[in-house]
């Protein structure tokens, strides 16, 4: 349960820290919080050192997103709060030692979202509608939280349904092919000759008639021996201990803490190409080290 701090608690803390009477602290905070909307509405911008900046942008109805656009003389304002660096740093103290890491091309991580620069979210904006005749507020958020049209809500559902239908169709057609091959030995022989082993058994399945390149590549699996760690396995498989982090990423669902990996656990060894693993490339090793350090700090 998260702590909720109200004006009374802030007053008590301020009176104690600033060595001022309770009434004075209360009057100060009330005035402070009341002055913010008053000032922003008059000045359009209020900068408070180490706290943040409130910015007001006045817009005409024509400038508003179509979803909230109305044909009237209403005045729209966008209110934005941008926290100051000092406040950002204070709340981000737990992550202060993290740095952004440049990734090699083609590297991807399961469950990590990709954000394009143009999509990057700026500070949240509140859209306020000021109608001179009947004043009412419209709390819709511009851009990020604009109400979706009913059809837009169904797009992800329809997309998923289309993918599922395509998969079902694919597997159904694959299943149909198998009996066809059983009943047509010529076809089986013809395929079998391509790998240089004539097939004599007419019951051979479609799978066995495929060339090795057609077979799906099975990921390598090992059971963690008692005398091995992720680092030792990385050294053995990839030529450098620092690549342990990719074994961890590949098996993240099974490994709760990379420092404590149970003996006998079945581990999937990732393909080198999946994470750009290259022991001869110092950049690849350095990147793996940075990621490894980042992961380990989560468990300190």
């Amino acid at each position: 349960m998260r702590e909720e701090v109200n004006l009374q608690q802030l007053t008590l803390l301020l009176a104690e820290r600033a060595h001022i009477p309770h009434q004075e602290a209360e009057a100060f905070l009330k005035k402070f919080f009341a002055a913010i909307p008053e000032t922003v509405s008059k000045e359009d911008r209020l900068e408070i050192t180490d706290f943040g900046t409130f910015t007001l942008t006045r817009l005409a109805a024509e400038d508003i997103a179509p979803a909230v656009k109305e044909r009237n003389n209403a005045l729209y304002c966008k209110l934005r709060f941008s926290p100051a660096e000092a406040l950002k740093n204070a709340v981000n103290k737990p992550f202060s030692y993290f740095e952004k890491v440049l990734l090699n091309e083609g590297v991807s991580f399961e469950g990590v979202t990709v954000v394009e620069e143009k999509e990057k979210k700026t500070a949240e904006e509140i859209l306020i509608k000021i109608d001179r005749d009947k004043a009412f507020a419209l709390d819709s958020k511009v851009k990020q939280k604009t109400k979706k049209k009913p059809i837009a809500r169904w797009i992800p559902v329809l997309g998923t349904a289309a993918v599922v239908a395509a998969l079902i169709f694919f597997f159904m057609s694959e299943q149909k092919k198998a009996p066809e091959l059983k009943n047509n030995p010529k076809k089986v022989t013809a395929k079998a000759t391509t790998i240089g082993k004539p097939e004599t058994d007419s019951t051979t399945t479609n799978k066995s008639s495929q060339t090795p390149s057609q077979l799906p590549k099975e990921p390598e699996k090992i059971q963690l021996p008692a005398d091995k760690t992720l680092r030792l396995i990385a050294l053995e498989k990839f030529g450098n201990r620092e690549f342990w982090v990719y074994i961890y990423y590949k098996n993240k669902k099974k490994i709760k803490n990379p420092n404590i990996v149970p003996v006998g656990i079945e581990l999937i060894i990732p393909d080198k190409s999946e994470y750009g693993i290259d022991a001869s490339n110092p950049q690849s090793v350095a990147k793996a080290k940075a990621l490894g350090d980042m992961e380990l700090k989560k468990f300190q």
Partner: protein
Amino acid sequence: MTNEDFVAALSQQLNLETKKTLEILATAITIISEKLAEGARISVENFGILDTEKKPEHIFVEQESRQQFLMPPEIEVVFKPDSAFIEKFKEKTA
């Protein structure tokens, strides 16, 4: 309005010296920052809510260079004004 102007206006309204107002304001902001850093939500009537939201680690793609960066997690401070704030705001703006 700059911080100096804001402090001057507060001093006048509270009948306090500018120096004293600056000190109290700095202390108040430190308390707010500390509470937000502890993960608390600050809810003030007639003002709104100051809260934090955790943005998980993500891959950021630069538009021009197409370079990809693994970005660490980040905590964002968000402000959600309450209806009284918006009403007061509208009165002054209209």
